């Protein structure tokens, strides 16, 4: 074996380390661009009823006008605040729940069936209950977001803690680490990729719950404004808002996925 260069077959190269966009990524972008172009042509040639769907170029124009006018800034801000609060609370509660389930096997055995069927429960039915509890303000929506995001965070935290190999815990003891040092220097870094998957899902679920809640249950916010524009046949505003939302969520998801991939590339297993 040569020790100067990387011996053939001995090293696993991190294929994505150098380039931010992979070949598959370019293909995906190409497919999306093709679909957008096809929709543009279909709308321009009136193959699709322009009353129902407007061309993507007009959607983009509508989105830009909305941003430039500042008319919807308050609603966008309100939604982002609600998502951030739901995400933050879900993060803390979900992480604590995951650690608790890991530390208390009996509690976990009792909670297992509930956790397995959790996402079968339509969380939005609790909205009236939350209005009774929190009043007619933003908190019922935040609570819906927390309920939606929290369990994904807890399950991924639990998964992460369970995947830390016993050899790492033993190594920590061999190196004379205290339990606190072991937690912060070995256990948490070891399960970070899985916890981060929980963080990513919590962001996505918080967005879904808050926007969907605003769409049907609220009197303000991004989701409400989309529903309002829809009810008033205001297509440029509706599609403009939808495009803005898709771009924002898409960007957040892309950034988190890229970060998550980097974390998983460093661990031996790759992306789960």
């Amino acid at each position: 074996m040569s020790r100067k260069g990387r011996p053939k077959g001995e090293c696993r190269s991190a294929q994505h380390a150098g380039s931010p966009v992979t070949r598959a990524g370019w293909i995906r972008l190409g497919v999306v661009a093709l679909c957008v172009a096809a929709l543009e042509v279909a709308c321009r040639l009136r193959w699709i009823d322009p009353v129902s769907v407007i061309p993507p170029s007009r959607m983009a124009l509508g989105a830009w006008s909305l941003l430039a006018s500042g008319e919807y800034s308050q609603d966008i801000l309100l939604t982002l605040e609600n998502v951030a609060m739901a995400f933050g609370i879900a993060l803390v509660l979900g992480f604590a729940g995951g650690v608790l389930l890991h530390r208390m096997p009996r509690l976990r055995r009792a909670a297992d069936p509930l956790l397995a069927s959790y996402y079968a429960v339509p969380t939005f039915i609790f909205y009236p209950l939350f209005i009774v509890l929190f009043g007619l303000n933003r908190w019922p929506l935040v609570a819906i977001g927390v309920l939606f995001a929290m369990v994904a965070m807890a399950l991924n935290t639990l998964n992460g803690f369970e995947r830390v190999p016993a050899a790492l815990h033993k190594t920590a003891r061999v190196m004379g680490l205290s339990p606190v040092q072991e937690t912060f220097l070995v256990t948490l870094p070891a399960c970070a990729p899985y916890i981060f998957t929980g963080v990513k899902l919590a962001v996505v679920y918080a967005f879904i719950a808050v926007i969907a809640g605003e769409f049907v249950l609220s009197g303000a916010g991004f989701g409400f404004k989309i529903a309002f524009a829809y009810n008033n046949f205001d297509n440029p505003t509706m599609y403009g808002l939808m495009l803005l939302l898709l771009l924002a969520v898409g960007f957040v998801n892309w950034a988190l996925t890229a970060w998550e991939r980097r974390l998983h590339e460093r661990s031996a297993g790759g992306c789960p």
Partner: protein
Amino acid sequence: MPHLAAPPDAEATAGAGRLAARLAGVSRVYAGTGRQPPVHALGPLDLELSQGEFFAVVGPSGCGKSTLLDVLAGLSPPTSGTVEFEGRPVTDRVPEGVGVVFQDDASFHWLTVRDNAAFGLRRQGVSEREIAERVDHAITFMGLKAFAAAYPAQLSGGMRQRLCIARTLVLRPRLLLLDEPFGALDQQTRLLMGDEVLRLWRDTGATVLLITHALDEATMLADRVGVMSARPGHFIDVVTTGWPRERDSTIVARPEFGEVTARLWLHLRAESMKAMSMTA
């Protein structure tokens, strides 16, 4: 009755005569959980390791080899008996001077090769200059110098095991415990890793206890090989190989190599059949 005391022949080992570790009447019983009855995993068992000796342990699956290592390292307390390292009792903490390399990959995937190797030294508060020197020496010694900035996921299984050995090596252990460190590697890599472990053993003068299921590996590497019985494991024979201290993997070509390995297998065959009938 197997010869369990450290060998009196001073030529075979670097610091023969002085005891590195001693186990006396050690047994380990794991408490039952729920409907599972308690498991008597080990012993009672006696063992003496001379300073600078290379001792290998072979035995059937589930005979308590890894439990023996855990007890000796202070990772698991014995149910009865006493464990000593350099004359001091080993209780529920890993004594200073003891290093362990496990079969499973125990490299820290979030740290580079260099930071992995430096991890233990940083915890000990060693100066950065000394850390750099010792880490450089260890990763060069283990052939990882070119990969100092790489992450473990970018290394092969053999290289990751070498990294774990390097991380242990920088702490300058006087007793090195190896728990089937080459178990997941192919035969050629295992032979080459064996050469590196022999080089490490000679250069550092450490006492080495190797747990392995590979008889040829035990024969090639060790001064003495302890053969364990089926569970609860105790030594049924201790075979002295008689190899010179300066040796490498080419020793497998010697006629005596086959004789020692055959002797180990004769003992182990009966015990393995017993172990299989226990699990059937």
